[in-house]
């Protein structure tokens, strides 16, 4: 192994509250190929992905990401198993670069969820009935300001509040500004070496 050189290793920004208009995207099992088709992965950067988000679905017209009413949206409201399929971080990158700062859904695919944490975009779960109400409310009045609050674990709109859930670890990472774990991980270099020494297979073919 090489010795770490710790320079500017992590970004510390507390994410407690995201407020803004919502964007309802109805449907279960929306996969990352739909969020960003593979042909847009042919790049060595994430630049330009914001314009390409849901590009094939948008070609059919009337897609929420194209509707004038939602152009200032900051909170995406989705249904079940959002972000399933490929591990491509390009998917949350595309959503975030379009302007979304938090996602509220019935449930999320595991890898997509992890990728969102790693780039500082909270994904929180709410009951299907709450999601349906929120999607309806946004569609009826797109200028409604929603507030996702990780401290109180609620989403609020029009004086109403619905409970939201997020695992304690990721929640704490957002509230303490440590969602970019890189620096914290490297800081444990001694413990990493100690663990490595207990793993027999690391020396089997040296």
């Amino acid at each position, binding site marked *: 192994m090489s010795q*770490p050189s710790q320079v500017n290793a992590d970004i510390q920004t507390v994410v407690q509250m995201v407020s803004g208009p919502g964007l309802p995207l109805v*449907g*279960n099992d929306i996969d990352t*190929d739909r969020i960003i088709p*593979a*042909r847009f992965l042919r790049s060595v950067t994430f630049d330009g992905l914001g314009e390409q988000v849901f590009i094939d679905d948008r070609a059919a017209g009337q897609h929420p990401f194209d509707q004038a009413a939602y152009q200032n949206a900051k909170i995406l409201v989705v249904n079940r198993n959002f972000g399933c399929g490929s591990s491509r*971080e390009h998917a949350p990158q595309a959503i975030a670069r379009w302007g979304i700062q938090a996602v509220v859904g019935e449930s999320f*695919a595991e890898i997509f969820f992890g990728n969102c944490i790693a780039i500082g975009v909270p994904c929180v779960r709410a009951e299907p009935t709450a999601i349906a109400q929120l999607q309806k409310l946004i569609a009826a009045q797109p200028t409604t300001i929603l507030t996702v609050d990780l401290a109180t674990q609620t989403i609020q709109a029009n004086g109403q509040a619905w409970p939201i859930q997020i695992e*304690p670890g990721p929640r704490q990472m957002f509230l303490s500004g440590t969602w970019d774990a890189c620096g914290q991980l490297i800081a*444990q270099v001694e413990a990493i070496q100690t663990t490595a020494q207990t793993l027999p297979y690391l020396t089997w073919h040296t």
Partner: protein
Amino acid sequence: MSRGTLFDKVWDLHTVGRLPSGQTQLFIGLHLIHEVTSPQAFAMLKERGLKVMFPERTVATVDHIVPTEDQSRPFADPLAEQMMAALEENTQAHQIRFYNVGSGSQGIVHVIAPEQGLTQPGMTIACGDSHTSTHGAFGAIAFGIGTSQVRDVLASQTLALGKLKVRRIEVNGELPPGVYAKDIILHIIRQLGVKGGVGYAYEFAGSTIEGLSMEGRMTLCNMSIEGGARCGYVNPDQTTYDYLQGRCFAPKANWPKGNWTEAVSWWESLRSDADAEYDDIVKLDAGAIAPTVTWGITPGQGIGVDESIPTLDAIAPEERPLAEQAYQYMDLAPGQPIQGTKVDVCFIGSCTNGRISDLREAAQLAQGRRVAAGVKAFVVPGSEQVKQQAEAEGLDQIFIAAGFEWRQPGCSMCLAMNPDRLEGRQISASSSNRNFKGRQGSASGRTLLMSPAMVASAAVTGQVTDVRELMP
């Protein structure tokens, strides 16, 4: 909460500590990288002035963007060439082992790591690719990660993670003829749904699983992610050890430097205990599994080849909107038999089914037959080694004589990042893993997932065909 499973044991052994957030810091024993999800991670390292902490535990290959016809450099696609050049530069700068095209060991990352003996029981394995679950076939905890996490592993060889629950999926009984590992996993996903595994690691067990070859187990674990499970695994056994012994990076048997005996006893100690506790247990009967085909736009929308596309009333209410989308997108009518559905393109390959046994099974069906008129059929070996082995056995000649194209290794039309793609509304019979809308390179293209033998059967008949009718 699970206790005494292989997952618990391997997780504990690789736990570096608990982070202030409560997440586990998990050591990654093997980090596999490729050209699509690593360039941005290396750029982030550079930005932050970080090094790769364990370059010797990192292995690279190129697979997603490589053309399967003309592989001369520079690649015809300048974007592909740029990604290739970035990987060459990054692996060289950080002294990372790189299996490049023409090295004799290049191929799909989930095919080459087992081939080289890099994948071993008891390891934690991460890769910026969701099909990393493949490596669980060896009794490893293997899972896909995103690019920021690739950065974290490069910089620290660790990840911040929450522990998964463990579901044991027990499949017992003898597999009927014409039914393969691909059918088992499509059947499991059909039963448990594409979201059923979210939050779980899948432990595949039972006599049917124990009877599978390593390649079959890889196919099975590969598609755990399509069932929502980030990783899937099979406890290591003699089949695992027999596969590993003698491979390049496997522990050596010869004295005095050999560690084989030590390795096997360590691997044995990691198997799930007889009294292990699981968060959930599901039991399935192998005899009830038929050759399976997907008819829709998620891998969970599958049926036996002898069944008809389900009508709306046969589908659970919460699944109906997706089924209606699928009928429309696929242009397949509910109630219509899937058998007889015309296909335009037949693709044999991918990290799911691009290994030598897959090609043997397909070749058996292709032998002495001809690809149907109007059908484009092609075979993409999973790696340079698979290609070489297939050619040594004459499989390439069987395919070519039958009218299949015989290509160079890569991911190819599984996700169509290279020139291999569907055109317009074409419908493919594919041995790959995803039938999502637009997955195979055309925004309106359609995919039917099935085993390689079923793809070969479709190729020679021009339509979805029950492989059992063509078997010798």
